[in-house]
């Protein structure tokens, strides 16, 4: 495509340059897609700092988008047609738009493309042409292992969807009692039955007190379910959502409808990841009394608890609030550090030891957050200190002092060495030994009686 044509044109220019070595000095203009400008710098263009900066920004942006995609790669989830527009991706290496119109799973086309050999080829060409490190190839594509896993996950989801369709035609009212004996695969069916059971009496009798009870329990169940990471539950939530909407149409005053509409607005505004969370978030509000009746069993089947590493309820509620304001929890730490940065920006950048302060502050921040182990400084560390008679920088005076110290310790050790090792030998004996041609044995013999 465009990238290929660009590489092709680059190849022709190289050929021309080889063919006419006399015209080596005059380079032809070519367009750099990364910097988005024409240049005549030839192959050395990719080493220029502006190009490197633009490339880093581009790759970081693509990486950010891929991190979103990787979530769906790990947790395959069905795609609702209204979300198809949110799932489009621009592949910077192949210069093509990956749309999800008509695909059944989130990022289906994109994942297929990123795992393809054509993408790998284009990626290699791009990184070779623009720099950026060939060792990063794997971070911009989907490996075969991940792709196979994702395909497997999609298949299981498809199977589950088929069985769900079969069962949803005629739900048996007594089946909710069998929850104890069902396993994860059949959980969705049970849930679907539960929700339908709960909706039928609500629509016919509109029992309001029961609804408030449900809402009380909702808080208990909500975090546990939202912590459940398997794709199956996501699918279940998504499919049940439409049913829930129908069920609660007449219950405006109960507060449930309000929660539904709020969640829907969240869903429209937030990204895919939070999207899935919000769908799960109001999933238990539909699961009413039959669910509560058999809550112990269904919890065992699908819900994460403290042993499976799910966050506690109070944290989950905070997280939900954060989602409402479109802020991920980890942004909290960043905002604190950004406050620090703002504070330090007010200070004069030319103040004494500004570089040291920035570096040390960053280190302390990381130490506080536990990302790095606090470094124990060298026992011989000394600050820069300008001495009375010093000339030059303060670092020099420190070096001077260190040299003095070393010299002092050397002389000290030397005196110790000399005092310890060299015994006193009288002059006469020394002369005698030299006369004997350095016969040490003779000296020893003489010295022994002494």
């Amino acid at each position: 495509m465009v990238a290929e044509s660009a590489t092709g044109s680059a190849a022709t220019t190289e050929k021309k340059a080889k063919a006419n070595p006399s015209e080596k000095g005059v380079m032809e203009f070519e367009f750099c897609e990364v910097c988005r400008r024409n240049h005549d710098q030839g192959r050395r263009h990719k080493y220029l700092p502006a190009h490197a900066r633009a490339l880093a920004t581009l790759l970081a942006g693509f990486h950010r988008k891929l991190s979103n995609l990787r979530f769906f790669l790990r947790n395959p989830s069905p795609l609702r047609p209204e979300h198809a527009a949110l799932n489009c991706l621009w592949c910077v290496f192949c210069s093509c738009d990956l749309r999800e119109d008509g695909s059944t799973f989130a990022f289906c086309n994109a994942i297929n493309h990123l795992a393809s050999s054509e993408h790998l080829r284009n990626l290699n060409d791009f990184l070779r042409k623009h720099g950026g490190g060939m060792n990063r190839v794997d971070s911009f594509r989907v490996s075969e292992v991940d792709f196979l896993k994702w395909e497997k996950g999609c298949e299981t989801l498809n199977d589950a969807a088929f069985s769900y369709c079969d069962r949803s035609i005629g739900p048996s009212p007594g089946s909710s009692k069998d929850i104890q004996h069902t396993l994860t695969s059949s959980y969705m069916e049970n849930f679907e039955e539960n929700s339908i059971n709960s909706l039928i009496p609500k629509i016919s009798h509109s029992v309001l007190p029961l609804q408030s009870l449900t809402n009380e329990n909702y808080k208990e169940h909500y975090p546990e379910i939202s912590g459940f990471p398997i794709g199956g539950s996501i699918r279940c939530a998504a499919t049940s959502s439409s049913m829930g909407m129908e069920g609660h149409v007449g219950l405006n005053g109960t507060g449930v409808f309000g929660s539904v509409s709020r969640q829907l607005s969240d869903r429209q505004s937030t990204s895919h990841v939070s999207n899935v969370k919000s769908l799960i978030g109001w999933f238990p509000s539909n699961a009413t009394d039959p669910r509560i009746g058999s809550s112990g069993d269904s919890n065992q089947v699908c819900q994460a608890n403290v042993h499976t590493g799910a966050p506690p309820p109070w944290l989950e509620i905070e997280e939900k609030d954060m989602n409402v304001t479109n802020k991920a929890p980890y942004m909290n730490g960043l905002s604190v550090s950004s406050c620090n940065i703002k504070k330090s920006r007010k200070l004069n950048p030319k103040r004494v030891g500004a570089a040291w302060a920035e570096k040390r502050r960053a280190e302390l921040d990381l130490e506080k957050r536990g990302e790095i182990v606090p470094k124990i400084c060298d026992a011989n560390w000394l600050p820069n200190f300008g001495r009375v008679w010093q000339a030059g920088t303060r670092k020099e005076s420190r070096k001077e002092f260190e040299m003095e110290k070393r010299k002092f310790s050397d002389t000290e050790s030397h005196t110790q060495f000399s005092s310890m090792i060299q015994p006193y030998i009288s002059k006469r004996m020394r002369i005698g030994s030299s006369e004997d041609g350095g016969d040490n044995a003779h000296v020893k013999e003489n010295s022994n009686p002494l």
Partner: protein
Amino acid sequence: MSGLLLPTLSRKREVDSIIRDTLDKVLLLRFGRAADPLCLHLDDILSKSSREVSKFATIALVDIDAEEMRIYTKYFDITLIPSTVFFFNAHHMKMDSGTADHTKWVGSFHTKQDLIDVLEAIYRGAMKGKMIVSCPLPPERIPRFQLLFKDL
């Protein structure tokens, strides 16, 4: 009394860490011993004003008799006590007070305000990138000592 209010450092690692970790603030290190009358006077002034200058300065006392402090005593050429050394972002700050030694403040301060003025002058100078500042105090309020240098 002052020992209760101000941290007293007696290990090299403690001094190292306070020099390294005091960021964008003036660090005042008082080298001396608590039993000395002039040190007591200075400590009293330091402890009284430490709270007032806490936004732009940190004050710590260093016990000169500690074994591990010998290296700092030698490095900073401390021959008289009390001697006060100033740092900013792990950089030594000098002060030209008309005495022979610009590297440290030897002796005590007359009043609390003198100390605050000196600290403020150092902070303002350091924020402008100056490694040496001139003393804001009039000469009669600066203690004079005859410095005898060993090698001269």
